[in-house]
């Protein structure tokens, strides 16, 4: 059999306890932060900050616990395509609901 160099046949990158431990620590820290921040009055920014922290946590889980940081381009693009489609669906639904009663208030 010929030598295989293309990425789909590549050896799997093994992620070690050091990376997992660091990400784990950051996730716990962010959880404490988001709960603490919820008790500070920032108006609409409470929701913005809470969701921003949630997005950072989710990104850390996807990139390191779920190995996407070390994965092939195919997998990176699969995740990206899913995220993109999800955002498009949410934006379309939201723009519909926001514009339902346009000019009627």
């Amino acid at each position: 059999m010929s030598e295989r160099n293309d990425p789909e046949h590549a050896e799997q990158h093994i992620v070690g306890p050091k990376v997992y431990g660091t990400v784990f620590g950051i996730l716990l820290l962010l959880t404490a932060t988001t709960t603490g921040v919820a008790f500070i009055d920032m108006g609409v920014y409470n929701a913005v900050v809470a969701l921003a922290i949630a997005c950072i946590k989710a990104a850390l889980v996807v990139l390191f616990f779920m190995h996407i940081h070390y994965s092939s381009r195919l997998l990176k693009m699969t995740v990206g395509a899913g995220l993109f489609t999800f955002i498009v669906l949410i934006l379309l639904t939201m723009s519909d609901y926001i514009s339902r009663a346009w000019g009627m208030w």
Partner: protein
Amino acid sequence: MDSQTIATAPEEQLPGGVGRHEHPSFLRHHFETVGQQREAASFGMWVFLLTEVMFFGGMFCAYLIFRNWYHPAFVAGSNTLDITLGTTNTAVLICSSFTMAMAVFSAEMRRKGALMLFLVLTIFLGLVFLGIKGVEWHQKYVDHHIPGMGFSIQEFVHPTNPKAVALAPDMAEKTQIYFSLYFLMTGMHALHMVIGVSLLFFLLWRASRGAYTEGHIMPIENFGLYWHFVDIIWIFLFPLLYLISRYQ
């Protein structure tokens, strides 16, 4: 030699008519290399997870729209949740994600004992999460905050919390929408946890018989992806249901 030639070449016969196998026993014949098999399995798992994103996405979208329509009711409903239990549960779930990640690492290192230990820890933390969730649900039952089941708007019309704003009865009724979404979303999440823990028992049983520590770790790795995905759903449920509407 390309793959077509490999596929159609007559298999060399050994005495006894058994085909010759010069590859790991877990490598399926329609894959050329173990790497390709892993990539295909990961890809398939991710496509499944994307359908799950869409499934939960619909509920998140409904939550977002109703929260905008009945904002005072959602604020009042959200403040009846126990933030201490919610934060504890978030930490428990993150710990279980860490132990699951370590289980994948142990399988990769071919350490059977460590793999089983981390699977047991993940099961334990998963059950702790479900237990705490059960305590929270029971509190809602005690408070008559389960929609439809003798739902009481008393707490929202005449709040006992001095920081709370009293709602008019029609808006107070809308807290039922908040609790419907609360039970739907946490319920669907808990169902995923129950399925996950059941699968973990199966994986633990297989691992105890030596599976997954001889190079074929795909079932462990794909289950890890599922478990982390369920963790991510909670990472978003937690701020939306518990945090963003706190009274200051």
